[in-house]
């Protein structure tokens, strides 16, 4: 056992050595990266999004984002598949009287009721303004999911309708792919920005970017909510 530990420590040291040695060679933060330079100088003009990060994430490298949305979708679906229980034991248990989950305190319930719509509004604000201000669909979605988490904590006996969750997930995913396919139809490139770019700094600008971010915001928000639901063991 001991030799095993020593060997693994040695391997880790070699790994870390190679890692540090190589990373120390890279001059990070210097303006030598021509692709990044291009994004900074041409980004606003070519995509119409004032937030350069958004212009890279959703326009130049939008395909990666589609992939990442898919990864999150797989994680939620996979978790649902692994934790799936056919008997729906939990649902009956929660209705019976010897249920051990306590009712949350009055303060928590009232506070949650008050905060929930505000959290949703804040999340929606973040993803709707993804092309103008820092943040975007993923961040806004996570904020929305945190609102649902609060509701789950305050009202442990209620749960959200899974069917509508999965419908929203599918629809928003389809909108993302659909916009990509429309781009292919209208301008010959998958995921190209085929809508008018508008005036920078206004809400209705940057073509397809805000639409995709709204879809991503819904998708991420509802996916994380369904992950929370699965992990709390609410069954189906």
């Amino acid at each position, binding site marked *: 056992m001991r030799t095993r530990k020593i060997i693994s420590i040695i391997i880790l040291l070699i790994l870390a050595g190679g890692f540090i040695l190589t990373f120390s060679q890279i001059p990070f933060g210097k303006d030598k990266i021509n692709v990044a330079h291009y994004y900074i100088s041409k980004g606003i003009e070519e995509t119409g999004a004032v937030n350069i990060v958004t212009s890279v994430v959703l326009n130049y490298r939008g395909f990666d984002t589609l992939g990442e949305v898919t990864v999150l979708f*797989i994680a939620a679906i996979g978790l649902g598949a692994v934790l799936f229980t056919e008997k729906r034991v939990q649902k009956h248990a929660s209705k019976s009287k010897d249920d051990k989950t306590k009712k949350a305190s009055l303060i928590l319930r009232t506070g949650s009721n008050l905060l929930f719509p505000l959290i949703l509004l804040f999340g929606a604000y973040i993803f709707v303004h993804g092309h103008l201000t820092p943040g975007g669909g993923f961040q806004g979605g996570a904020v929305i999911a945190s609102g649902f988490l609060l509701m789950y904590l305050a009202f442990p006996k209620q749960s959200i309708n899974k069917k509508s969750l999965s419908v929203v997930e599918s629809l928003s995913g389809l909108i993302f792919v659909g916009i990509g396919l429309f781009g292919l139809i209208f301008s010959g490139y998958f995921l190209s920005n085929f809508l008018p770019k508008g005036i920078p700094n206004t809400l209705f600008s940057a073509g397809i970017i805000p639409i995709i971010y709204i879809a991503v915001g819904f998708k991420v928000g509802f996916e994380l909510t369904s992950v929370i639901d699965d992990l709390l063991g609410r069954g189906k």
Partner: protein
Amino acid sequence: MVNPSLLIGLPLAFAFSIPLFGLISKKIEKYIPIIALFINMVISFMLIPQILKKPIVVSIGGWSPPFCINLVVGPLGILLATLISGIGFLVSIYAVSYIKEEPTEKYHILFLLLMVGAIGIVLTGDIFNLFVFFEILCISSYALVAYYKDKEGTEAAMKYLIQGSVGSSFILIGVALLYGFFGTLNMADIASRITSANPTYLFITLAFLITGFGIEAAIFPLNAWLPDAHSSAPSSISAILSGIAIKTGVYGVARMVYTIFNANSILLFIAFLGLLTLLIGEMCAFRQDDIKRLLAYSSIGQIGLIIFALGIATSLGVFASLFQIVSHALAKALLFLAAGYMIYRVGSKSIASLNGLGKKMPLTSFAFTIGSFSLIGLPPFAGFVSKLSIVYAAMQVKKPVFLAFIAIALIATIIEAGYFFKIVQNLYFKEGKNLDKITESSGYILIPIAILAILIIVIGVHPQFITGLLKASARELLERAGYIGWVLGGT
């Protein structure tokens, strides 16, 4: 012209829409993967003649190549994409009646997304995008390995998850290092600048990338997860994991070593690793008494052979390696599908319980025999041609070390023949117990098995159907200047 981005976009759209079809009727969902992969197969077949003339580079979003993500659909990409959609199509037919355990809707979504990941890996021309598709493939396979939710499957999935995540993070570190050195993520762009960086640090980067892809490809000593994962997954998923998923790891290694790094100096080491993997895989397979574990270990051995041939690095060697990828994918998918249904009928995974099935399930057993004979390398099956080309390629190098290597590889083939002959003999010539109620497989099971068996024979008898594409693919890997030229123009 059909746009190759449809090969990824359409199945993705179908996968997202499965829950919506589920609202209409629960019966539709299992046919969606069949439709999606059939369309994919047709599109990729239509693209082949065009790509043999001139490879297609598609930019996503409409910007010029180094600034956006692009797909590079060369001969190698379309060869593997066709193979993936074809086998995926057949396996999805099999799954219609094989997958009965709930939640079937989630199974079909995950299966289709696994296919999207595999197709994306072989078509993309951007190294970070490659990583994203790799994650799609890996994460959906972790969930599918644990699909039966039994102890064995959950443990295997956990092992796979831990080792696979380590592999993915190694790839991510490698990608980050490359981006740090060159400031670009486009594979052709990196390849054209590779000489400008310090070779020592490039070597460390390459080591990270090869280790990462090597875990998915199950190269020794990174193969610990494979026997568990491939044997405890549902058989349709085992067929995909063994037939397709590990090949994407091999593709990753080949793309890094040949196209991006041009690392000729480590090829001998790669060949040696391949040989080691081959020997260890076959020796472990010989000792198994669980049919699915045996097939899983045999996959490790076959991957070793593929990697070995890849390390020969002549055009014939790479050609033989790609041929072996095709013949192994067909044969191993067939074996897992056939064995999966035999297991379903007899209710046990042990080899002894398959005794005497040759009379009860004649068609399935016959197909199993064809698959195993092709893996051993007997004529007139596809495996014969591919193994013969590997031997021929190794002889042609005229280095004594390769002669020694090929001698060892032949010994491994004899071991392989040993255990497959034993199974086939048991199938036909041993008396089984309690076989009275067992009947032949049903239609949805037999169709894919029969098609795979026919393909193995057709390719074995007429290898010229695919040799043109294989030769062009080998050329794509060996002539990196050509690849760079397609994407960046010039040269």
